[in-house]
């Protein structure tokens, strides 16, 4: 796996000896560096989108307003209290890839073969993390989850989607706006991509925050449709000169990173292509606000939330039975993320 211009597994890839001939310790040394880099990269990738936490449950939706009533000297208005907070739970799941690297396997396979195996494991882990994030984003319904890995175990948790008109309270807006929990939804749909639909996605997340930059992620398959929107301002190709007599975005387009780059502005939002986005959908959130998603890690040992080999004898980490990661991704800030489905008249969850 490549990290910038270097690859921490390159040395091992060139070795044609068996793992035992080369030495398990020496092989593990390089593999551990690659593994640490992989885990650090993935944690960094989560960025402003996913918050890592060991919390199982958090209170949500506690913001509310009170009204002041005009009375005379005898008047005494009714007591008011704010709406109770809504519990938002996070799941914890164990994801495992079995290997069964026995002494016999280490004797009969080259170091290069083991590196190929590890590369596949790292890629699989990355795909799995992305898949769980996508499931948390695109699923429009609240679900139950039996927390078998939690402490205490077997508690039924309530996993929430983004605001989905489930009648739960919605925090007040930054200017005192109130939202009807029975109708307010962040799963928007329109049969085609229109300027009104794109604007509604931006407004959906923007109206819940008093600062921050709206970010919209789209699939590269939809790039042409978004660029064709009236009012879209494309980032300029660095091979082109800027027009001094026109208002053009000063930020230059990243021309080589085809599937993961910001392509321009629409309204106040930056439009970015992401390799993991589903075609026909756009995801919006506010950068600069709390992360809309949370990744739960094991409370007693958060390190298990990173990818690692599971071995019986610490002297022989490569003789592992499995590679695993324990984590779960779910929605945390229900009002700070929204999805637009611009291929259906009503929101249709994609297959992930």
């Amino acid at each position, binding site marked *: 796996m490549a990290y910038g211009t270097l690859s921490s597994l390159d040395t091992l890839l060139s070795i044609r000896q068996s793992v035992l001939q080369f030495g398990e310790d020496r092989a593990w040394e390089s593999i551990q560096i690659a593994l640490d880099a992989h885990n650090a990269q993935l944690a960094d990738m989560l960025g402003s989108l996913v918050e890592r936490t060991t919390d199982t449950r958090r209170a949500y939706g506690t913001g509310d307003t009170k009204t002041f009533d005009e009375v005379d000297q005898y008047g005494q208005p*009714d007591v008011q209290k704010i709406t109770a907070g809504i519990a938002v739970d996070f799941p914890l799941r164990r994801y495992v890839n079995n290997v069964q690297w026995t002494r016999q396997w280490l004797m009969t396979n080259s170091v290069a073969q083991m590196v190929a195996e590890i590369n596949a494991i790292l890629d699989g882990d990355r795909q799995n993390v992305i898949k769980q994030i996508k499931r948390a984003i695109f699923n429009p319904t609240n679900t139950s989850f039996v927390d078998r890995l939690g402490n205490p175990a077997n508690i039924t948790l309530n996993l929430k989607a983004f605001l989905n008109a489930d009648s739960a309270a919605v925090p007040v807006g930054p200017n005192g706006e109130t939202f009807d929990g029975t109708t307010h939804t962040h799963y928007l749909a329109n049969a085609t991509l229109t300027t009104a639909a794109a604007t509604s996605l931006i407004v959906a997340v923007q109206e819940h925050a008093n600062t921050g930059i709206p970010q919209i992620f789209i699939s590269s398959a939809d790039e042409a449709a978004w660029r064709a929107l009236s009012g879209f301002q494309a980032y300029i190709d660095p091979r082109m000169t800027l027009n001094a007599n026109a208002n053009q975005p000063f930020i230059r387009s990243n021309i080589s990173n085809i599937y993961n780059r910001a392509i321009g502005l629409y309204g106040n939002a930056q439009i970015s292509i992401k390799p993991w986005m589903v075609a026909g959908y756009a995801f919006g959130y506010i950068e600069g606000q709390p992360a809309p998603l949370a990744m739960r890690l094991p409370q007693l040992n958060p390190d298990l939330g990173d990818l690692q080999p599971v071995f019986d004898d610490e002297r022989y980490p490569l003789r592992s039975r499995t590679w695993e990661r324990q984590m779960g991704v779910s929605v945390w800030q229900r009002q700070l993320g929204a999805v637009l489905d611009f291929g259906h008249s009503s929101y249709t969850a994609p297959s992930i």
Partner: protein
Amino acid sequence: MADDSKQDQTPDEQPQPTDVPQQTPAQQASQAFAESAAAAERLHLTTTVPGGKYVVDGQTVNANGEPVADDKKK
């Protein structure tokens, strides 16, 4: 909430005929009481009936994933 407040009303707070020219302080207080009760009712939104209408796995469901009638198929 609103029902509870009605039970607590005293005779002075009962609605008065429309030809009463001037309201007593007690009546004014009852108006404030009624307004705040309505406001409190709005704030104490206790209904948990899930709304929303989404299509998941080809089935129209509400916010809790429970099947609901699809308007288009009617």
